[in-house]
Each structure stands twice: as C-alpha cells, then as structure tokens.
C-alpha cells in the first residue's frame, strides 16, 4: 500500500495532464522523423515546420477557446478564405492597411453572428457554425465572381515570410497569441467562466456565470484568429483562393483534441493545442516526404489522428 499510493497518484496526474502527453508524442515523432526520414534534421526544416504550423496553430488556438466551453466552430475554414479574399479585394482599391482592417472586421462579424445564433436563437453550435460557414463560402463566390484576386501587401508578406533572430515571424506571432490565450483561459475570470460552461451549463447558470459575454468572447476570438491566419496565409502565398481554408477545418479541431482538450469541453490546456498543431504539421510533412499521393496521404493522416486519439486523448468514462 505504501508503494501503491504514490504510483496511482502519479498516474492520475499524468492522465489529468494530457497536454503534457501531446508534447511527449510530438518529441517522439520528431525524433523518429529525424532518425528515419530524410531532411528533418536541418535548421531550415525546423524553420519551415514552425512557420507552416503557425497558420494552423493560430486557428487552433481560437478553436480551443470554443471547444473548451463545449462549443465547436465549423466555420473557420470559410473565415480563413473570407479574410484573405476580402483583404486582397479591398487592398486592390484602398491599400493594404484598409484591406487588413476590413478583412479582420468581417471575420469578427462572422464570429459574432455565430455567438448570436448559439446564444439567442439556441441553434446547436455545430449546426450554426456549419451554416454560417456555408453562407460565407457562398457569398465569397458571389463577391469575387469566382475569381479572387492576388495581392502583395508588405506587412503581411514580412509577417509570413520574415525572420527575427532566425525565428520565423509567423511563429513569433503564434506564440504571442498563445501567451494571450493562456492568460485568458487559464488565469483570467473569463477562463474560469469558459471552463465552468464547458463542464455544466446548468450549474453555470445557477452560479451566475455570464453566458452571453463568455460566448461572444469565445466565438468572436475564434473567428478573429481564423481571420488573422487567413491574412498570414495571404502574405505567405501572395494570392487568395476560395478553398484556401479547407484543410484547416478538421486539422484545427484535431489539434485541439490531440492537444488533450476534451471535445466535450471543460478540460484541457491551450499549450496542448500548440503541441497538437505542431504534431499534425509534422505528420503532414512526413507523409509528403514519403512521396505518398494526395489521396493516400489524406487517408493515412485521418487514420493517424484516430490512432493517436485512442492512444492518449480518448474521452474518459465517468
């Protein structure tokens, strides 16, 4: 008994910190990639990975906020395209700064609409965000007449491609956003409300948790971050497209879950999502390095996500 107690306590601590698991799996995978695949041992490959992971990571941070309060945002892929396409379009006439501002504003607007639907119309988050996402995608098609513009905006270009002290600026931006999110979710009052709502909506109501404000902050921040990611992507490729956000829908949710956050909400850590996004980007790069065709790559990635979920991020039985 004397020996058994600390051990079970240790196991419980590990189980309760699935975010730490995510980093463990990330390190093991990275080590395996360096050992068994070509081209993962160079500084430039690390740079490239952190840079590309940033696009996904920024979106996934926002997704974490929403998932933590038992919501989900299925409109992020459309919002990524929305901010990039609108920014490119507006900057063509009114300059880059206007493009960026308008792009972010319309992104935020989508988030607020999501919150209104979830909160006041009581549409389930899955249905509401899927619907707004579809509406946004459709209106982009109408807005651009099917041919979105290219745009070279100085600020976005350097944000996506430049480095400070050898570190990609996009990665720095991602880390800065993460720092704010850590504060918001794990140190501030709003965070307590988010976790409470994710655990039990009824108990939260009877405890005086401000449902409205919290919902607006979570969905607003999620859409805004998806918009930011869209702008960085625009800077990265200097061109916008209607489908540029598509890969990020599933991957953003997978990053959250593989990062150890419960898809049911109320449990997890933002930092886990950082590991989740890096892990998924690394896996994608690995599969590409093995020269698998696009179809096989997608199938393998899907299976890997399921396998990893089963390995450490499965929902607990109560």
């Amino acid at each position, binding site marked *: 008994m004397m020996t*058994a107690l600390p051990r079970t306590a240790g196991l419980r601590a590990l189980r309760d910190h699935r975010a730490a698991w995510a980093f463990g799996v990330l390190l093991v995978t990275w080590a395996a990639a360096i050992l068994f695949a070509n081209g993962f041992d160079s500084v430039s490959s690390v740079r490239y990975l952190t840079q590309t992971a940033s696009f996904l990571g920024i979106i996934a941070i926002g997704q974490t906020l929403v998932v933590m309060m038992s919501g989900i945002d299925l409109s992020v892929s459309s919002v990524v395209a929305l901010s990039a396409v609108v920014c490119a379009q507006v900057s063509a006439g009114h300059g880059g700064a206007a493009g960026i501002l308008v792009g972010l504003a319309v992104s935020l607007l989508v988030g607020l609409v999501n919150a209104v639907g979830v909160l006041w119309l009581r549409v389930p988050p899955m249905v509401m965000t899927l619907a707004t996402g579809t509406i946004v995608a459709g209106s982009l098609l109408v807005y651009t007449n099917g041919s979105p513009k290219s745009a070279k905006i100085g600020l976005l270009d350097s944000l996506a491609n430049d480095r400070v002290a050898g570190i990609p600026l996009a990665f720095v931006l991602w880390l800065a956003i993460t720092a704010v999110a850590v*504060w918001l979710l794990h140190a*501030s*009052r709003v965070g307590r409300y988010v976790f409470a709502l994710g655990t*039990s909506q009824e108990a939260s109501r*009877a*405890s005086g948790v401000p449902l409205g404000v919290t919902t607006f902050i979570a969905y607003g921040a999620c859409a805004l971050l998806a918009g930011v990611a869209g702008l960085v992507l625009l800077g990265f490729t200097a061109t916008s497209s209607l489908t540029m956000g598509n890969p990020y829908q599933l991957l953003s949710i997978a990053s959250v879950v593989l990062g150890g956050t419960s898809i049911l909400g109320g449990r997890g850590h933002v930092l886990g999502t950082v590991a989740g996004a890096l892990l998924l980007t690394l896996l994608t790069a690995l599969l590409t390095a093995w020269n698998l065709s696009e179809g096989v790559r997608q199938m393998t990635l899907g299976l890997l996500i399921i396998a990893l979920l089963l390995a450490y991020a499965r929902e607990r039985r109560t």
Partner: protein
Amino acid sequence: MALLTVDRVSKSFAGNRVLHEVSFDVRAGEVLALVGENGAGKSTVLSLITGMQAPDAGELRLDGEPLRAWSPLRARAAGISSVHQELSLNPHQTVAENVFLGQWPARRGLVLGRDLARRARPLLERVGLDVDPRTRAGRLSLGQQQLVELAKALVCAPRLLILDEATSALDDDQVQAVFRVVRELRAAGSSVVTVSHRMAELFAISDRLTVLKDGAVMATRDRAGTDHDDIVRLMIGRELSDLFPAKAAPTKAATAPALRARGLTVPGGCAGVDLELTPGRILGLGGLQGQGQRAVLRALFGLARHGGEIELAGRPAKLSSPREAIRARIAYVPEDRKVEGLHVAQSVRANLALTNLDTVAPARRLTTVDRNAEAGLVADLIDRMRIKAASPSQEARRLSGGNQQKVALARWLPSEPRVLLLAEPTRGIDVGTKREIYHLLRRLADDGVAVLVTSGDTMELVGLCDEVAVMYEGAVVERLAGGDLTEERLVRASVNPAVTHA
C-alpha cells in the same frame, strides 16, 4: 432460513478500506434495514449483492450457494431487483416503455405499443401510480418517476428487492404505496433490503435493522427490541440530542422584510404566492412533493419566468436572471446539487472560487485570478464548513453527498447574501452533517440573513423553521408558526387543505 448470507466480506478501493468483515443475513420473507451514516459502507454492500462490484475477501451466498462470477445480469436472473435514489429512466420514452425496458412485446420486429401500455397498467396500479402508461417519463414529477422505477423492479417478480434511498423523493402518500408493495412482497415470501435516511420509515417497515459504521457491522437488532435513540447511538457512536438549534426569539419590533413577493406566479408551477422573508428568520415551504415549492425558489432566483411583484428591502425589483438575483445578494442552493448546485467534474477549489471571482479576480488585476487569494478563500471555507476533501483539487463528484452540499452552500458565504434559498438542503445526507447544516443555517439567520427552505421532511421543517407556509397545487394554503407548527398540523395541512380551511 437465510435467503442471502453476507459472510465476512471485505472490500477496498485504491487502498481505502470500505468494508471490513461485514456479516449479516437476509431471511426469506423479511424486511431488513441497513442503516449507517454516509460513507458507512451501505452502498458498497448493496453493490456487492447486485453484482456491480466483487468482494476482495469473504463470500456471499444465495440459498446457501456461494455466488461465483456474480454480475448485475446474473443477479437479475436470480430474482434480485433494485431501486436506487438516482433515476435510471429514459425521460424521452413512455412510462410503459421504461417499465419493460429490454423486454418489449414485439411482433415481426415492431413494438406493440398498446400491448405494452396494457401490461404496464396493473404494475403502475400496484405502486399506487395513477398516470397514463403512454406519458413520457420525463413529464412526471421526481416522486412519480421513482415509483416508475419501483414498477420496473417488480416486472421480474423479485425474490429480493433492494430499496436504496428509494423513498427520498416521495411524499407521504407515495411512501405508503411503497410500503404496501413491500408488505405484499413479504407476505408472498420475498425479502426486502432497504436503505434510507428517514429513520421513521425504517422503523415503520423493517423487521430487523443492521447498523453499519465505518465499514463494519455494529449490531443487528430486532425492531421490537430497539428504538430510534438506540440505533442513532450505534450509527454515530454518541448521543444526538441537539439535532436542531434553538429557534429565533419572537421580536416585538417588526423587522422590515428583506424580500417580499406578492402574487408570485410561475406558469405550471405556482400561482398567487405571497411571501415575506425577514432577516433573522427561517421560513419553510412545506406540503406534498411538487406543489410548487420548487417554482417559488426558482422564480426568486431568476431561473424561472414569473409574474407578480417582488420587493427587495422595500424597493421593487425584477429578477429575470440568476445574475440579477446574485447582484441583489440572493443565494440559491438547488435540490439537485449534482446538476445545478455544483460543477461536479470540477475541483472543490474551482467550485468555491467560481461564485467569488469578483473578489478573487478583481478588475484592478485586469480580472487575473489571484491564486493566493483564491487558495486563502478556499482554505478558509473548507475549514469553516469542515468540508472533508482529500485536497482542494479533488473533484467535487468524489465527495460524499453531505460534503457536496457543504460546498454548494459554502460558495455563497463570502458574498454575504441577504436572502438564502435552499431546496431540500439535507436530502440524502447523513445525520451528523444534517445537524451541522441546521446549525449553520440558524447562525446565518442570527447574523441577519433571511432564509427560505423547502423540504419534504416534516420533522426537518418543524425542527428548523420559525414559520412554515404549506403549499398545495401551487398556492399557499396554510401558514403555521409558534405553537401551531407541529408535525401533525403540518401533515394535515399538506394532504387535506380543504378540511383545515373549513
């Protein structure tokens, strides 16, 4: 002749010994009561009998045969049914579907709904339930649902029926219906094991009482050879003289009410209720189960839409959300502490801090939670309320019912509420904790809080409250205070309001 023998059974969970060499037997055709405080091991013993858990040592014998590879399925097949406090009904299915869950009559894969209802009726009658078997279970009151559970347990004509706090949500009439079923079973040679916190019920129905304390059997007594005090002494190992605190001294000078409600109406809940909650006094809402008591409390906390006028400290107020109620310094401890009262999946710390974020995470810190202030607040509350938790980071669901209730109550204390609303504050709680809660409520009242309590426990209302308003079908039909506040008057007013009015 023993139907079931529990022979020197021990059980531990994670190094924590819950049962230690527990032995007793259940004879054929008898009603055996298992009594003990929360955590004494009653539920664990029952879970061994129903096959939910296996003993670490010792054995159970049914008809003299040791039970091997025991499981809930085999227990059912052997004629052991159980009814628990926690409901297992599917609220979206009909009463009849719930009663016959898993054994619906069917033809060619189609369920015969009419047949189902026809077969459910006699069972519902037997448990004294006058509802259409085609009603959805979720539409019934808590007490009625509990009776449906009982009907469900009777489907397989049990040889051994286990009632685990099965009457906790029932009013007196419904309890009598359960007793009738128990007596029928006993007359037919079946046995019943019953667990309840309502001592009077155990004495009314059982033949023998087995007392558990800290996982061991203290004694088994024939009902005729024992009394209430004897059993309580065995349960807690000491005399329990002062369960209820002294009441408030009647004041000559009238204190202004902290909250006054006039014509409070909740559609489908209560109608035209007038209430005055005065600082220093504990007001009770009595009556049968589900006569609108819950609706009154929920309206006053802004959880239910309501009509009528509410005045707080003499000023008209609108309470349209819990946040507004909390701002007006009204606190609410709901009856369903696992759903509304607590975030059971969160830590004790998070639960206690959530309602006090204004002080723990003040605006001048940009709402950043001050961990030191939080730890101080939590430690203080745990200490003050004597909450037994392994640590502040223990999940609330791992606490015993009594300690959960203490947390649900403690989290409101730092904000110093003016009005405290409590629904069934001691349901399913051991007698020691009950006493603590009664005394705490009285201390709060003495400090100037106006307290409103609903309870299905007549003794509790009489012992605790300064005044009791009796509700019937959503309206207050009688107010009892002072010398008029007796159990007898209260019960009479509850069941037959027309007569008391005449």
